[in-house]
């Protein structure tokens, strides 16, 4: 008996190890990616979700000692949150729309036209992300201060626009570049006007990339706090900014967790929409996905 047990156990472990190793060998990268993803994404997610529904959570326990929704009521009865959430959504939509309006035509030009300084200009958009963001913001804030833009909605919109440029230029530019010219020529050839070629041929083919850019821009803007903090306060308060102040001033973890939980909603929703869009038949079938 006493000798059999270790044998069984070691047998079990060796078999487990064996099958695990076989799996890793067969699909090593996939599993590794899954484990890393789970740790990076699900770990914090798990803790935030638990905190959002926790009444009490004392130290040694792995799960909250008492679940409940009372903090939700408290959170949303706060006037500042009830105000900041819709404002943040509208603000992000506005910034995304403005960014698209400016960047999409520009990226088409970058992709399709050969003009002097094209390379330099394209790289200059990298510059906004190549230096410490906060330094850039501070110097912009100084200018905004002179222009009386501090604490105003246009000020916040402007600084958040700066933030979106890189993504909204680079992704669509490479998407437009990815559309083979001869596909457009073939459409011209059968008699389509250049505008029609753009709308019916080019645009549908870059749509997945464009929606990804729009989505990421919206989500990034929605979560953007540094610029909004610096330029917006004290009068303009977005959700992430509010979260900062809540976490800093009142050490109630539940507030932070609940707001985080709520802040995820737009990105989750948009991800679902994106998936719908990508699965919506023609794109996937068309690209043989």
């Amino acid at each position: 008996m006493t000798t059999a047990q270790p044998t069984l156990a070691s047998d079990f472990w060796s078999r487990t190890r064996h099958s695990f190793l076989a799996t890793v060998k067969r699909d090593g990268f996939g599993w590794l990616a899954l484990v890393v993803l789970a740790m990076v994404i699900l770990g914090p997610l798990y803790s935030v979700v638990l905190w959002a529904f926790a009444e009490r959570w004392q130290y040694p326990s792995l799960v909250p000692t008492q679940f409940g929704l009372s903090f939700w009521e408290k959170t949303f009865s706060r006037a500042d949150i009830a105000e900041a959430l819709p404002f943040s959504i509208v603000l992000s939509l506005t910034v995304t729309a403005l960014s698209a309006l400016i960047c999409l035509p520009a990226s088409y030009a970058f992709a399709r036209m050969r003009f002097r300084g094209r390379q330099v200009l394209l790289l200059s958009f990298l510059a906004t992300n190549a230096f410490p963001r906060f330094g850039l913001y501070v110097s912009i804030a100084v200018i905004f201060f002179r222009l009386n833009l501090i604490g105003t909605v246009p000020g916040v919109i402007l600084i958040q626009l700066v933030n979106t440029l890189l993504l909204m230029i680079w992704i669509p530019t490479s998407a437009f570049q990815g559309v083979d010219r001869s596909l457009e020529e073939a459409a011209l050839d059968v008699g389509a006007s250049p505008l029609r070629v753009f709308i019916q041929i080019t645009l549908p083919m870059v749509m997945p990339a464009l929606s990804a850019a729009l989505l990421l821009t919206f989500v990034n803007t929605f979560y953007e706090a540094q610029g909004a903090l610096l330029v917006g306060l004290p009068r303009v308060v977005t959700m992430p900014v509010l979260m900062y102040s809540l976490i800093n001033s009142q050490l109630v973890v539940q507030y932070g967790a609940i707001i985080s939980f709520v802040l995820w909603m737009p990105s989750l929703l948009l991800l679902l929409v994106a998936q719908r869009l990508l699965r919506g038949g023609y794109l996937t079938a068309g690209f043989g996905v």
Partner: protein
Amino acid sequence: MARLDIVQLTKQFGGVTAVDAAQFTVNDNEFMCILGPSGCGKSTLLRMVAGFEAPTSGDIRIDGETIAALPANKRPTAMVFQKYTLWPHMTVYDNIAFGLGLRRLSRSVIEQKVKEALELVSLSGYEARYPAQLSGGQQQRVALARAIVLEPKILLLDEPFSSLDAILRVRLREELKRIQRRLKITAIFVTHDQEEALSLADRIAVMSGGRIEQLDAPSTIYSTPSTLFVADFIGTMNLLQATAAGGELRVGDYRLPAPAGLKEGQVTVAIRPEDVVLGGEGTGWRGTVDQVMDLGHYRKIIAQIPGVGDVKIYLSKMPDVSEGAPITLNPQRWLVYQPDAALPLEYRRAGAVEAAV
């Protein structure tokens, strides 16, 4: 159903002259091939006709009317591209119907025409597929259907089958020829594959370095290439250095009768492999067999003739010849190319001589 005139058409890209004063006419219902090595300007010429490149100078006329100023979408031409250019987000039906829809035809007419076009390229029943669900050959057939469904005056094809495998290429080539005959459509087909050109074309324009070297029926191009370039480019040709003097050609130690009116000096003698027979003990070229390649229905032999060089010959039936054995060759027909004063690097055919057997 139209005639195309290319008039002194020239295209320069920066300093590069891609097409140099091309001038020719494609007749009604004619199937013309433009043949030439890579980079000789074939695509550029075709793209100017389609309207994708603006000519530097010259004119393009369809049935006598200039179209040079029209944008691509207003020209009565249709093109099939070398690359796969079906629109990936549209079904086969929508790809073919797209151009028809722009012409404001009724839905039932469009349906009928798409159906006929698909029948023509033997792809009935593929309407609902997306391009990614088709093989390369099927995609090019849909591209062909997309072009001919518009009943263009001129059909332009830029190496449409060059990315397909050899067997499929031959099949599609035959299919294309049949369709062109049936629709009586004027077509220009660009290729760098001479077999394709020789088997498809009513006439072939051989291009080199932006210029059209020769424009003739395939048999004429093969039998009497008008420049040394064409002689070298089309088929297999033995090109031998020789001297013209006293009404004779001196090829190494041997002599051949010179064509009438040949100036004295350095010339190049061109002999097709099938124009050489064995034997002719007195005047024959003596050498050794270097290589024998059995190609099934005939044999290709490379003979080494001292003082002359390597000579390729084709023989269908012959006594067994083994590598290293002595051999005597007797050329039956040859062409002579002489340096042209106006074009220093080019040799022109000065005349053909059929040897008396």
